[in-house]
């Protein structure tokens, strides 16, 4: 678009007043990760496709009024990016509050307490309370699987489990049912996980789940450790990225 487009080899972008070089096709999040600039993310997972669903990684680009997701926005020559303006801080906090109010998150009784991305981020942005009324949706817990449980009360619909199950394990047990407030993660035809003919019990979904929505039956309160890097490393070894 711009007549001043740089030669195709490297692109110069300015992030928070500093200039960095980037390869064409890289996302703003890629550059920030490499340069050690912290951008909060919830639905992004290295190694599987990007959906831009959680809106936590929103950034500002000069000349655009809209906030754009860093995970899904590709660098362009001479882009000026802000990652930590007041507007963004406010927005992140609001997004987190909305996530909390949408389901029934009760950290004190959760297996992922102290090991939860959602909790960590709330802490990071200084969310001390939620200004929105809680919606208290009617969610169930499926404990039919031999080894794992899924508690929809704690799910934030990041769909990491869905993408990992499909793209890495190749089983596609999980998907999303319905729309908006009524959407839920489902196994097969919205059936019990325990009887799923497609599930291989590999546990990758449990590893990538950022909250306590998917957990190992053996873990008790506060001691669930998640390892999303495992999936990223696996895909890197297979020579595939995003």
């Amino acid at each position, binding site marked *: 678009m711009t007549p001043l487009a740089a030669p195709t080899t490297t692109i110069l972008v300015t992030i928070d007043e500093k200039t960095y070089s980037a390869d064409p096709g890289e996302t703003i999040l890629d550059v920030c990760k490499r340069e050690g600039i912290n951008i909060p993310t919830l639905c992004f997972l290295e190694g599987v496709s990007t959906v831009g669903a959680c809106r936590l990684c929103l950034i500002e680009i000069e000349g655009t009024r809209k906030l754009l997701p860093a995970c899904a926005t590709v660098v362009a020559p001479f882009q000026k990016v802000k990652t930590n303006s007041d507007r963004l801080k406010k927005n992140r906090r609001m997004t987190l509050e909305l996530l909390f109010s949408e389901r029934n998150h009760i950290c004190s009784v959760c297996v992922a307490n102290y090991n939860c991305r959602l909790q960590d981020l709330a802490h990071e942005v200084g969310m001390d309370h939620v200004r929105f009324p809680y919606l208290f949706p009617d969610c169930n817990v499926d404990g039919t699987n031999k080894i794992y449980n899924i508690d929809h009360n704690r799910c934030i619909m990041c769909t990491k489990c869905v993408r990992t199950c*499909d793209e890495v394990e190749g*089983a*596609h047990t999980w*998907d*999303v049912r*319905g*729309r908006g407030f009524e959407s839920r993660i489902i*196994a*097969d*035809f919205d059936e019990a996980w325990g009887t799923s003919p497609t599930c291989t019990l590999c546990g990758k979904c449990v590893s990538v789940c950022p909250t306590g929505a998917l957990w190992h039956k053996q873990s008790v309160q506060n001691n669930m450790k998640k390892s999303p890097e495992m999936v990223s490393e696996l895909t890197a070894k297979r020579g595939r990225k995003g």
Partner: protein
Amino acid sequence: MSQAQVVDVPESDPRVKQMLKVIKNYQKRPDALVQVLHAVQDTFGYLPMNLIRVVSKELHIPPSRVFGVVTFYYYFSLKPKGEHNCLVCTGTACYVKGAQKIIDQISASFGVKDGQTTPDNKLGLQTARCIGCCGLAPAVVLDNEILPRTDPAQITGLINARLGAKK
């Protein structure tokens, strides 16, 4: 509740063969999922669970993905609809133009709530968010026919005329 039971369709039903033919016409291409589901919905008036399984198998699409699509679109229904169906749009334009009054009027006249059918299964009432003809708001779809700029005072008469007429 007066909801019709969710029923499977026996494999011997001649319409099942018809459905398999449709699938074959699309060369079992997975991207024909929505078209195939449309055909099933139109032939049976709903999506029988056992046939959804067949569709998933024939098109080689994972069960959860098929179910995700089925539950995403308001057009698809897992339960048999009524003999006649009335869909009131509650999208922004129609909502502003008084869709709720239309729904209330239909509920009062026919004793049917959103998402249900009358006890005699004659009339089903559904709602959807924007059917794509906002210029005609408030819009109602009565058995695939669009009723533009509906008026709560007239809607009962229009539906009665339809119920009286042969399908």
